[in-house]
């Protein structure tokens, strides 16, 4: 399938591992140039860049705290200056507020709100003017299973992110800009200490119609499709990649 992504610029936040890294590799395979960022681990980001650039595409890496508008604007300027445009944004960076509502501290809430909700807003404000001008853009945000199964912190914030996505879809569809969410279910991923949920391992999940954990590659395939030329009429949606754990 020709996705029409060759030569396009794809910006991926939090591309050090898991979904971000898998998406970088998947977009590189389509011939897209990449602008990757992280706010902490440049070493790991460079590993991702190496994996992706093996396909011959250009890959730029930059430190960026996606909750800081000045740093995000600077990142997007890098993309415009080096590649001429930022065509696709994958707002993958996330931070989990775990536990029941009464267990989540005000600090945890603020940190999760900043990364999961404010950051995509800041990024979209930075990239949409250029997308409008070129009348082409794809924004992909991350939801998850939490908003559908219920989780006070993560479910609230990911759902807010879906609201932002719908608003962008509504406002900018006329410019050929689409905005969608991907909603991964139980995916086999590496977690930071303290952010484990206890079920992201490659064990069986007998209660799920596809009774196993998904892979980040299965998610990034969906992300690539949502970014492709062929997905131009899909907007404001959340596509669940969850083995049927929840049906919309």
């Amino acid at each position, binding site marked *: 399938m020709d996705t029409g992504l060759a030569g396009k610029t794809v910006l991926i936040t939090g591309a050090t591992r898991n979904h971000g890294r898998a998406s970088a590799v998947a977009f590189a395979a389509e011939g897209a140039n990449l602008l990757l960022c992280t706010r902490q681990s440049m070493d790991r980001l460079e590993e991702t860049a190496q994996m992706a650039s093996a396909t011959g595409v250009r890959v730029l890496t930059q430190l960026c705290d996606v909750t800081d*508008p000045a740093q995000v604007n600077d990142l997007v300027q890098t993309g415009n200056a080096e590649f001429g445009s930022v065509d696709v944004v994958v707002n993958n960076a996330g931070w989990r507020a775990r536990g*029941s*509502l*009464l267990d989540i501290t*005000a600090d945890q*809430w603020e940190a999760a*709100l900043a990364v999961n*909700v*404010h950051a995509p*807003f*800041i990024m*979209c*404000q930075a990239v*949409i*003017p250029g997308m409008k001008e070129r009348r082409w853009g794809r924004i992909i945000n991350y939801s998850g299973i*939490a*908003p*559908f*199964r*219920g*989780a*006070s*912190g*993560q*479910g*609230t*914030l*990911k*759902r*807010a*992110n*879906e*609201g*932002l996505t*719908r*608003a*962008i*879809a*509504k*406002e*900018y569809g006329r410019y050929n800009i689409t905005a969608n969410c991907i909603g991964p279910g139980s995916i086999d991923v590496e977690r930071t200490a303290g952010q484990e949920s206890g079920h992201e391992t490659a064990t069986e999940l007998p209660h799920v119609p596809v009774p196993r954990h998904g892979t980040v590659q299965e998610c990034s395939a969906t992300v690539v499709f949502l970014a492709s030329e062929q997905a131009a009429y899909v907007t*404001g949606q959340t596509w669940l990649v969850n083995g049927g754990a929840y049906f919309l």
Partner: protein
Amino acid sequence: METNLHGKTVLITEAARNFGPETALAFAAEGANLILGTDGPEEELQSVVTQAHDRGAFAVIPVAWDVSDAAQVESIIRECSTTMGSPDVVINNASLPMSARSLEEISFEEWERKLRVEVTGTTVVCKAVLPAMIERQWGRIITYVGLPAFLGSNAPDSAAELGMVGLARGIARDYGKFNITANCIGPGGIESAEELGTLSFPPDDGDPIPRWGNQRELSFLAVCLASEDAGYVTGQCLLANGGKYFL
């Protein structure tokens, strides 16, 4: 209909504006005690306080507050609870009205403030009332969202409203075992005295029910969801919108 709301304490986070006054009066008619909040001056609640007494409310406390200020919310709820018991039912309808503008025209500060009042503020209120609900093994949390959550609208409205839908689902999952339910009501095209900007969806000939809804039709839903017999309904969003949008 027997709602079993007589003598229960109902907190309405914004009772001076939007659908707050009519909702307060609907609960007053059930004989509930009321804590009525507003983000404006307390005097703006005077009219609804008087009417609530006339309709049958046993006790009514007006409070001026900022729901995003956790310390203030906790202190006010603690104080009110000493006189009329802690809230059994909470109606979250605090909002920060903002004119509809393009994403590119909204400052980050405006966006942040909107989410702080509507999303963080709603969590602050819920956190303040949940411990007593858990202790009594009974609680009803009802949040007014709106059609923007589903139809898409300007970014702050859509994000804040859908965020509150997520919160209701989270509370529903975590606290259902304590007989606490959390649901949303999604009004659309409800006649209101206020200028609601993009939040008003005028009747359209293509609508299944092509007329304005009235506020009684909305507050009826709130009373139903708060009633004893709604104890198995949780994590849901009920749209009162004349069929403009189906979930």
